[in-house]
């Protein structure tokens, strides 16, 4: 399916945006610009503030200071959660339609895009974990998002299913041209998918690394090896500093 007008990527801009919950500082003020159609991965340990950064960008949290702007506004963005979060009492097709405000238009195409065209009438309970997460991806895609946010979407999947899902995410991103932000704790996954990796440490940007290389990426590609090493070194260097 050709990318429609609405499916172009949205540029994202943070200017001095930070977040504190009461006296607890979660994100220090930071500047960040993601160009339209870019693929940014945010990595970091649990509790480093990476999910808060994502929620700030999506407008689910308001910044304590600074500004966050997403081209096209919050309605241009869609979020895929760590868990599929499908309605168990709705069919697969009805679940996907949630992403289009209940409209069935485009549901079949979205299920095609995630390679589940024959599961439309199933209940979520009848699907495997990987299939459920693909339905969740279809639910996000059916709204023709200009920004797709993925909050550790593959964390609960087994290793082989993860590889399938990574390939699927990369394919729809290439086909549709939306801006993608992936939060993950898996450095290899971040480097394999993103063209830019942001390491968040204690609420600050610890590393901002561009990842080069032709797609689909091969794990043994020298650019991939180097990028993985750079991110892991940055994480370990901090470890040593403690």
């Amino acid at each position, binding site marked *: 399916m050709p990318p429609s007008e609405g499916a172009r990527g949205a540029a994202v801009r943070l200017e001095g945006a930070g977040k504190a919950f009461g006296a607890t500082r979660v994100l220090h003020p930071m500047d960040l610009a993601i160009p339209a159609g870019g693929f940014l991965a945010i990595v970091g340990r649990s509790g480093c503030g990476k999910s808060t950064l994502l929620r700030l960008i*999506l407008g*689910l949290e308001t910044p304590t200071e600074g500004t966050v702007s997403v081209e096209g506004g919050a*309605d241009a963005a*869609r*979020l895929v*959660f760590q*868990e599929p*979060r499908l*309605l*168990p*009492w*709705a069919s697969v097709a009805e679940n996907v339609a*949630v*992403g289009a*405000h*209940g409209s069935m238009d485009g549901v079949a195409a979205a299920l095609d895009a995630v390679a589940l065209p024959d599961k439309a009438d199933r*209940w*979520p*309970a009848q699907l495997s974990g990987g299939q459920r997460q693909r339905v969740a991806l279809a*639910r996000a895609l059916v709204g023709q998002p200009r920004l797709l946010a993925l909050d550790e979407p593959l964390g609960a999947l087994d290793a082989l299913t993860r590889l399938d899902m990574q390939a699927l995410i990369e394919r729809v991103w290439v086909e549709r041209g939306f801006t993608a932000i992936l939060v993950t704790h898996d450095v290899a996954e971040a480097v394999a998918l993103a063209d830019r990796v942001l390491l968040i440490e204690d609420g600050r940007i610890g590393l901002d690394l561009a990842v080069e290389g032709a797609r689909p990426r091969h794990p043994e590609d020298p650019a991939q090896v180097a990028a993985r090493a750079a991110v892991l070194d940055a994480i370990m260097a901090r470890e040593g500093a403690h």
Partner: protein
Amino acid sequence: MTRVERLLPLGVPVALIALWQAASSAGLIPPNILPAPWDVVQAAWRLIQNGELPKNLGISFARAMGGLVIGGGLGFALGLMNGVSRLSEAATDSTLQMLRTIPHLALIPLVILWFGIGETARLFLVALGVFFPVYLNTLHGIRSVDPQLIEMGRVYGMTNGQLFRRVLLPGALPSIFVGLRYALGIMWLTLIVAETIAANSGIGHMAMKAREFLQVDVVVLSIVIYAILGKLADSVTRAMERRALKWNPAYAAV
């Protein structure tokens, strides 16, 4: 399920009735203590022919359903309201929890003073009895809906109305059905007591009148009818439950 497995639940009741009939026929059970099954069947036939059984059955059924609709409806509405609104819960829940601890049958003397032995008294008692199980289970059902699904609904731009229809209500439904089935048991129980103590029609009254005339067969018939009505109500609810919850693997048709 095979034919044998389908018929298996009937095995014990059928065997018990056969044993009962055999013991009665052999003279082991005096008929003025417990009449033979066949005598009960004959009593049923007699009362059907003179129109007494259909009339009383209809009256009892209407009372049960009336009380269920009033009490269950109120319990459902308040359960929904208190499940959705903290303000409404703060205003009413502690009062309701306090009233809940009173056994509703303890109110019978007061109810007779208020309403006499008319229809209102029985409707009031049944409605009061079914109110609490429906209320508590509806509230619990709404509260136990997965908060992650509610967040998903909000993130995906559902309005409050959509969130209620598509997430909260279906999520609460399994619990609401538990409340309904529990309420049905209380509904029959309350009706039996109310009709036995203060009524001039209905199955309970039929049984009490038969006791005065020492018609043990009619007394036993009344008890059997209550058992059948209770089982029937439960089966209907279970069928509704299976239909409404067919998405849930725990209720999927075997």
